[in-house]
């Protein structure tokens, strides 16, 4: 500690500065994210057309004043569909975060805190990690059937071990820290130590990981839909829209381009925000800047 104290980083404000340097990009990310989320949440009110309304006379119209993002092969308004699809895509991403966090936290805490459980859980985590994410998700979705909830479950299972591993590792570290020893010396119960000391200190890594899982899950959802093993195609998500728009890639590129852009922007904004959060919350990394 004495060494840290004499290093320049300790001269105050370094972690704050870390964020300052990146503030413009983090700010940019946060703004996009807010816009995307707001558009998705408010879609029933701001969508100019009913997203499922067929109008075959209006097929494949390029972007115009009436149809900002053009129309698709059923004559549906792409703009309306993009913002409505955002609801599902974001819900899928967010739910994956919830599922994997709950699973990951439980597994990671148990493994990190109880030596006897550590071996078996660590092995299962290792085994699950051995499956490439898309591969495992494909197999699970194929097994469970293509629906939004199954995609959520599958991706949740896919990302849970990654989170569990991080949580386990941090728990192992935190478990040995003096403040946990102090709590044990005081006779604080194990569940309370887990909640007060371990979980509370894991909140920020979990939050940071959560944003990355969110981003990855949205990419994975798009990939699964592209491979035809994602959310049921009747449910509009950005992934299914890209997948369906692909056949019009040359003739009516807008059908695929706008949901694609929505994916890229949302994933990018999540990563920017996640990175910013990490800089702010992880003192080890923040001293880099």
């Amino acid at each position, binding site marked *: 500690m004495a060494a840290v104290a004499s290093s320049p980083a300790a001269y105050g404000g370094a972690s704050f500065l870390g964020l300052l340097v990146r503030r413009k990009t983090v700010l940019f990310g946060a703004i996009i994210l807010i816009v995307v989320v707001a558009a998705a949440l408010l879609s029933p009110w701001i969508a100019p057309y009913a997203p499922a309304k067929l109008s075959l006379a209006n097929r494949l119209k390029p972007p115009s004043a009436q149809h900002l993002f053009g129309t698709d092969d059923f004559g549906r308004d792409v703009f309306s569909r993009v913002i409505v699809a955002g609801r599902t895509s974001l819900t899928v991403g967010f739910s994956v975060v919830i599922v994997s966090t709950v699973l990951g936290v439980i597994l990671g805490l148990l493994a990190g805190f109880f030596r006897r459980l550590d071996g078996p859980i660590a*092995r299962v985590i290792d*085994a699950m990690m051995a*499956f490439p994410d898309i591969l495992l998700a494909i197999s699970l979705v*194929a097994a*469970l059937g293509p629906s939004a909830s199954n995609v959520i479950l599958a991706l949740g299972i896919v990302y849970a071990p990654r989170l569990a591993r991080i949580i386990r590792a941090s728990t192992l570290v935190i478990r040995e820290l003096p403040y946990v020893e102090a709590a044990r010396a005081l006779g604080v119960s194990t569940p309370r130590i887990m909640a007060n000391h371990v979980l509370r200190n894991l909140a920020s890594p979990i939050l940071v990981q959560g944003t990355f899982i969110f981003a990855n899950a949205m990419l994975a959802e*798009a990939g699964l839909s592209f491979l035809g093993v994602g959310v049921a195609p009747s449910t509009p998500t950005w992934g299914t829209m890209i997948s369906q728009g692909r056949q019009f890639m040359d003739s009516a590129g807008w059908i695929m381009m706008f949901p694609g852009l929505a994916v*890229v922007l949302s994933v*990018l904004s999540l*990563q920017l925000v996640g990175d910013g959060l990490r800089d702010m919350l992880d003192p080890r990394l923040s001293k880099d800047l």
Partner: protein
Amino acid sequence: MARYILNRIIGVIVVLFIVATVVFVIVRVTPGDPAAVMLGPDATAADIADLRIRLGLNQPIPVQYLYFMGGLLRGDLGQSIFLNEPVLTALGQRAEPTFFLTIFSILIACAIALPVGILSAYKRGSVFDQVVTTLAMLSASIPSFWLGLVFIEFFAVKLGWFPTSGYGGPGDSFLSRMHHLVQPAVTLGLVNSALIIRFVRASMLDVLGDDYVRTARSKGMGEARVVLKHALKNALIPILTVIGLTTALLISGAIVTETVFGLPGVGSLIVSAVTRRDYPVIQGALLVIAALYVLINFAIDMLYLVVDPRVSY
């Protein structure tokens, strides 16, 4: 040392056993009937039932599990239902494009990520660093299939530099086959380079702050030598892990990329096996890839024994 290696090997076996069980379970709960797919749309129910018996699909699940595990112990991954050949053969036939795709894309990814990541860490906070970090993040935000489609559209269809898909015909030279791999490898390499850049940067940042780097500088050594000899060698240990893991995980990217580029590799085999309900192939491929991952991990651990003198237990 021997004890350590032995322990690791036992660990690997346990993990592989769990992997095999997970694979079996996943595949068995999958709805859809391979027999119906094989026989085509006009097949009768009786035909399908016959085929199910021939394929052993009528056996109780635990019996199928025992057969499956027994087969694994003999190194037998089973027989592909659809392709009518051993799964191992089917995988072997498709290994080449996937192998080269993986190798090339990891090489491309490293060729981009190492210099850029090192420089970005070295000049942290600079305009270069910020541009690189943002670009890396952007390219990690682009779905790889999208990037692949754009490449095909531009380089293959518009410019005609590369074939749009496939892996060459019979008798095509090795060079021609590699020509088919350029676009997929670049796509996959680019997407993965983003991840490696971030990792290289972070590891280098960690290492550049280490005391022995300062010691090296205090010797009066040039910066290039300080960074490339003293810092990089230390950063390389975690970087190696990530490159190793990325290599294993590239298979995942290969699934999408091979599908986009119509490469007859393991990835597209898996996708088609899923639509064909070719259980043994899905099983086998999942297992082989997971095993590869575990083994690469193991190899990296063993590599540590060589690279890092501190790991000597």
